[in-house]
């Protein structure tokens, strides 16, 4: 049951193109799509093939040397070797044997340098890689998940536009949707669990539930006629989203998946979370972020990466292969990233520290070329020597890949704001 004022009236519906002032938005003002400034310029057929985004975030800063850009038998290379992949000439760490077999579906970006944005800091690196912009005081831009929710999500979606599968309890307390407002804020699934309180008390019967819903809607409608505000819109939207979630609760339950799949993805949290990500994407989720923690290995980097990257390899490769086999990869952009990489120098704890001058990410799927490694670092991995890119370039590229125009934007308090950092551009060599 829906309340009349928020379900059918063009004036009242919380459209992805419409205003929604977030209570926590630092910019605080009205946000609107700007005529002639639309992100949909490149997206005429968005509805034909629904674009989705999967981000696998290796929290803490995974080592490029133990993943995508190995330097075996060098002073900085560490103990691990490099292995051949399904693409002749592209070698990756021996810790990724399953992913290596899928390299023909992927693109590696080995020339990431985020030093200009001074991002040897976890928070700043995380912000840059999710917004494409350097963090600055007094400014807050929406993260990729919120942007995807707004521009790729649909009003009728049963699932929230931005779903974040987090280890532990989940929820980071950040203003991730910024001026896009709470409608596009992430739904956190702490440790892959279904949202709390989505199971109706069994003591409440269907008729009783319908009756109380009708009563709530009546009060809402009466209130809205006199005091409608962005906050009440958000409240109503959230309530309706919650009602949808209660109906769709099974989508969060990976026990519904075959045991063979659960085994294939791995009997550990990240494997289970990857399987949940598949389930969510197949249920139509617009943006799913799956976090694997923790790669901040100042101490015993190699022993920790041995375990962590092994888990990543199993869960991620199973997910990527399934997206491919099930025909979803062509409309799902897959991004594997961290806030930064790790130092080529091996410290005396046998660890690697934060490093943003020369590191790597991996991409696959929608709009991305297959089987390429773009960019190059020097023999010790200390500098980018070819095709240097930064977070802004990557953010532009992600938007382009899913058919959004990075030059499109919002209007906040009458001021046009471009979705992506205006000084950066897409990395054409990565775009299919």
């Amino acid at each position, binding site marked *: 049951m829906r309340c009349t004022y928020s379900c059918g009236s063009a004036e009242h519906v919380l459209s992805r193109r419409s205003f929604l002032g977030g209570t926590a938005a630092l910019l605080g003002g009205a946000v609107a799509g700007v005529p002639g400034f639309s992100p949909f310029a490149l997206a005429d057929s968005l509805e034909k093939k629904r674009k989705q985004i999967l981000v696998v975030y290796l929290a803490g800063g995974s080592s490029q040397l133990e993943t995508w850009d190995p330097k075996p038998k060098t002073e900085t290379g560490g103990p691990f070797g490099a292995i051949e992949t399904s693409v002749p000439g592209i070698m990756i760490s021996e810790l990724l044997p399953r992913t290596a077999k899928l390299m023909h579906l992927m693109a590696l970006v080995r020339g990431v340098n985020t030093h200009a944005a001074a991002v040897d800091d976890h928070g700043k690196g995380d912000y840059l890689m999710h917004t494409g912009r350097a963090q600055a005081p007094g400014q807050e831009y929406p993260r990729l998940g919120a942007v995807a929710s707004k521009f790729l999500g649909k009003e009728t979606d049963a699932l929230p536009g931005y779903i974040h599968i987090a280890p532990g309890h989940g929820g980071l307390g950040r203003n991730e949707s910024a001026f896009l407002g709470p409608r596009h804020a992430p739904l956190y699934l702490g440790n892959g669990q279904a949202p709390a309180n989505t199971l109706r008390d069994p003591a409440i019967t269907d008729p009783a539930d319908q009756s109380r819903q009708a009563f709530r809607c009546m009060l809402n409608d009466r209130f809205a006629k006199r005091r409608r505000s962005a906050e009440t819109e958000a409240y109503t939207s959230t309530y309706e989203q919650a009602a949808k979630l209660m109906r769709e609760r099974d989508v969060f339950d990976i026990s519904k998946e075959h045991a063979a799949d659960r085994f294939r993805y791995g009997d550990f949290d990240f494997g289970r979370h990857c399987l949940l990500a598949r389930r969510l994407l197949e249920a139509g989720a617009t943006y799913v972020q799956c976090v694997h923690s923790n790669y901040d290995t100042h101490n*015993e980097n190699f022993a920790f990466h041995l375990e962590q990257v092994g888990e990543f390899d199993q869960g991620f490769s199973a997910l990527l292969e399934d997206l491919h086999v099930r025909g979803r990869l062509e409309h799902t952009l897959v991004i594997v990233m961290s806030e930064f990489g790790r130092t080529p120098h091996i410290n*005396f*704890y046998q660890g690697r520290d934060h490093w943003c001058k020369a590191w790597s990410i991996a991409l696959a799927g929608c709009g991305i070329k297959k089987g390429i490694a773009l960019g190059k670092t020097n023999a010790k991995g200390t500098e980018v020597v070819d095709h240097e890119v930064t977070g802004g370039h990557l953010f532009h590229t992600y938007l382009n890949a899913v058919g959004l125009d990075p030059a499109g934007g919002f209007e906040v308090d009458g001021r046009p704001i471009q979705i992506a950092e205006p000084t950066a551009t897409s990395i054409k060599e990565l775009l299919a």
Partner: protein
Amino acid sequence: MNTAVSVDPAKIASVKEFAHSSPLMTCRFDPTGAYVLAGSQDRLVIRWNLESAAKTTFEAHESWVQALAFAPDGRTVLSGGCDGKLIWWNATDQKPKPIRSIAAHHPWVRSIAVSPDGKLAATSGTDKLVKIWSIEDGKLVHEISGHAKDVYRVLFDSKGAFLFSADLKGLVKRWEAATWKHLADLDAAKLYHYDQGQGVDFGGVRDLAISPDGALIACSGLIEASNPLGAVHTPAIVLLDGKTGKEKLLERPKEDIKGSMWSVRFHPDGFLLAGSGGGSGGLLFTFKPDQVNETYKFTLPNMLYDVDLHPDGKRIASAHYDGKLRLSAFAPVKTT
């Protein structure tokens, strides 16, 4: 090893340094006491003659060398590395070549122990396995599973009756060497930590030592891991009763020292020698087996990863991050 050495556990001095250009991961004296060998991050086994300081390199590993063990006669030495290989060498060759190379574990060999009769070698690895090899022909004699995590250490008791294997979770397993039957699980889990926030398993038994009479088993590692990924933890030793397997004592530095107790040895005089590396640098400790805190702490100039005790019971080798193999020595007990 001498049985009555009579050194002063409260007095250690630096003696000598041997230099290499890459961090040293492990070190062992040869049983004759003429050489010290080290394994390095640049894929070498390095031998130094203790008298002449002559340096010889053994080249065959494809990755870091982090395990060494001698046969009792001192002629055969085995090395294990992060390439998973177990390699046999003639320890005293002028131009050493591998006698045999075996893919023993995947991906890393963590430790090697040779039985007292010199017939068998036990290895452990990151594959959670323990394997038993014939020293003579390199054949796999037995494979032991049962550990749920990385097996850091294997060790035979002095009579060769038992094999001990110890893992990341602080579990020590006792096996009957004649049959490889599992006899008991010993608990050194105080050395293990699961960090909920960081989502990592950490710690474990980094080294094992058995007292000459078999009465005590020393498990070295770390405690108080408040930040595993940031190397904030305290070196420690869990002493277990050799018969019951029950914990007898937790030994730890009396000061606020940060690091891991990478190595532990029982000295013939009855005390423990241990090596710690970490935030507080490279340190040697001596502990009495009935006291919580150390008898003596000796500070070395650089982070260390391993320590060994010379067969004479007087000299100590330590393998360091700066590529130095450092020799230290106990002072003799003064006699009147």
